[in-house]
């Protein structure tokens, strides 16, 4: 490249008009380019903003949809639980009749053949009742209505009675049922005996069901944790066929058996372990399973418990109750619309000389109350026309008006939830007896209110 010419003009302070105009035009063009770039940016920004808003609206709409769907799902689930609970109730009432009559029939002179047949009726009824209870439990748990009691429980006795209960079943299959308890177990704890019995009973019953040879062991221990807290550990070990590893995770889910052939072979609802798991959760405990195919299965339950003082002696309660029933010819009013239940009630008390008047609705109960002095009233809650609650309230009102002594009224119902029982007590009832009625419970309950009566009116 050539060197630049020597006569390059030095830069001067002044510029020519054309140079100035060129610079001005260049600036104006730059400014107009800047304008259009800014406008593009603004528009792009607007578009983004619009998109963001649309997106937000979309998210809101979806969230709302989901909320509605969730509500619908919850409503459906509640409806299902309510349906199950009421269906169970509807089935319980006639079943209660079957079982009650079977029990009453046992007390009549029948042949050995008939005793055997009656035994099958009672066993089958019990089995149906336990399936029904399973379904009711699951619906209660799902509806968050399963209540846990806290009362003194003697652990060693509870497990000994479970062992006693299942020994015949184990013996039938030539299995050894062994209960081994740590030294600490021989004491009272605060807990829910019914639920604990349910969980362990379920595990033991399963173990016996699925074991063809060998043994079922129940290992129980109570481990001190400090601060008055103990850990109750229960292991139920069997020498059964075991469960394949890939099926273990399904065990605790409702309506799931290891495979559907199990239902055909062994029966059952497939609810037991699911209920056990949920009860363990409610009790603050855990349940786990280890299994080796061909060797056996071990279910392990742990739960925190508190030690309790020994409660007052409860033995001979029933003998005391019977003696109260036998004290005199008590006048008893039964208000119950269901014919079967009326018969069951009378049959269960058949051994005692009682004057039982039966009516089948609330209005008649109030009328009967006015016609004759009763020592106790047993009132069904759900009756047509005038309910048990309304009838009781009328009776209480009459007592107030005529200044007559308060007659003890016991509520009879399958609604045994704490909240409902409290409602009955607040509306004028003195006690409550759950259906299906058991002879011992009915006698104890009746003796209880009659004992108070006896104190009020000493014979």
């Amino acid at each position, binding site marked *: 490249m050539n060197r630049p010419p020597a006569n390059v003009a030095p*830069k001067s302070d002044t510029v020519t008009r054309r140079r100035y105009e060129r610079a001005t035009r260049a600036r104006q063009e*730059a400014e107009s*380019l800047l304008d259009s770039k800014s406008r593009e940016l603004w528009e792009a920004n607007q578009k983004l903003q619009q998109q963001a808003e649309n997106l937000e609206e979309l998210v809101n709409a979806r969230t709302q949809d989901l909320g509605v769907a969730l509500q619908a799902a919850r409503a459906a689930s509640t409806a299902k639980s309510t349906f199950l609970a009421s269906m169970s109730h509807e089935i319980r009432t006639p079943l209660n009749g079957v079982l009650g009559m079977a029990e009453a029939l046992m007390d009549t002179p029948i042949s050995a053949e008939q005793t055997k047949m009656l035994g099958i009726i009672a066993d089958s009824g019990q089995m149906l009742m336990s399936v029904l209870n399973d379904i009711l439990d699951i619906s209660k748990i799902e509806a968050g209505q399963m209540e846990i009691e806290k009362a003194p429980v003697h652990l060693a006795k509870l497990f000994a009675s479970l062992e006693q209960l299942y020994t015949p079943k184990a013996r039938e299959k030539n299995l050894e049922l062994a209960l081994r308890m740590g030294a600490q177990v021989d004491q009272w704890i605060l807990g829910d005996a019914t639920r604990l019995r349910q969980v362990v009973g379920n595990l033991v019953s399963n173990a016996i069901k699925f074991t063809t040879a060998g043994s079922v062991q129940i290992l129980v221990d109570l481990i001190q944790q400090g601060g008055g807290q103990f850990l109750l550990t229960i292991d139920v070990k069997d020498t059964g066929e075991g469960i394949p590893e890939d099926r273990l995770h399904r065990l605790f889910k409702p309506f799931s058996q290891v495979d559907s052939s199990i239902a055909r072979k062994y029966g059952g609802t497939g609810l037991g372990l699911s209920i056990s798991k949920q009860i363990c959760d409610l009790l603050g405990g855990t349940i786990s399973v280890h299994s080796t195919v061909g060797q056996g299965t071990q279910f392990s339950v742990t739960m925190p418990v508190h030690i309790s003082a020994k409660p007052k002696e409860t033995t001979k309660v029933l003998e005391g109750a019977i003696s109260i029933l036998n004290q005199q010819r008590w006048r008893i009013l039964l208000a119950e619309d269901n014919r079967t239940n009326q018969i069951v009630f009378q049959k269960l008390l058949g051994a005692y000389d009682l004057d039982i008047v039966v009516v089948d609705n609330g209005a008649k109960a109030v009328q009967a109350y006015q016609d004759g002095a009763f020592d106790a009233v047993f009132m069904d809650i759900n009756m047509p026309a005038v309910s048990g609650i309304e009838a009781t309230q009328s009776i209480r009102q009459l007592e107030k008006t005529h200044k007559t002594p308060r007659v003890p009224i016991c509520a009879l119902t399958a609604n045994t939830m704490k909240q409902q029982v409290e409602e009955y007590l607040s509306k004028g009832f003195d006690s409550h007896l759950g259906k299906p009625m058991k002879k011992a419970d009915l006698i104890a309950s009746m003796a209880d209110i009659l004992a108070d009566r006896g104190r009020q009116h000493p014979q």
Partner: protein
Amino acid sequence: MKGVVFVELIAMAESIAGEELVDEIIDSCDLESGGAFTAVGNYPCGELMTLVQAFGQALNAPVEDLQSKFGQWMFTKFIDGYPMFFAGKNDAFTMLESIENEVHVEVRKLYPEAELPSFKTERISDSELMMIYSSERPLVAFCLGMIQACVDHFGTPATITHKDRTENGKYYSDFNIVMAQ
């Protein structure tokens, strides 16, 4: 073509020939833009070729040499104006290799309409790089100047040769850069 190229060409010409001569040359070219260039504008590439031609004539310099000189001028402007492209690069090969996939990517963010040449690179050995230029525009000499300035900037001397060809109206050049051992 981006206005920055025109603005820098005029700045370089002014530094060589002075404002007055440059004004005269611009006026004589009868450009559509009137020679009023702004760095952020876009102008036809033909105007660049016309200006280079006119500057060459006025300065009595071959167009090729002028283009190459201009390439070097542009590269030094890049060093001053865009130090971020040089950060972390220790040799000319790494820098040249980054033009296609780093520098041009950034240029397109600001100027989506920019028509950029392509620079494919291939390392023949540790000391030899092949760089293939392809463009719609006949600016091989301008590239050569840029590559030369890049090599100079990193301080390791190198021999640069190039083989040019045109195909279907496109301009290609295979630049072979061999570092001195």
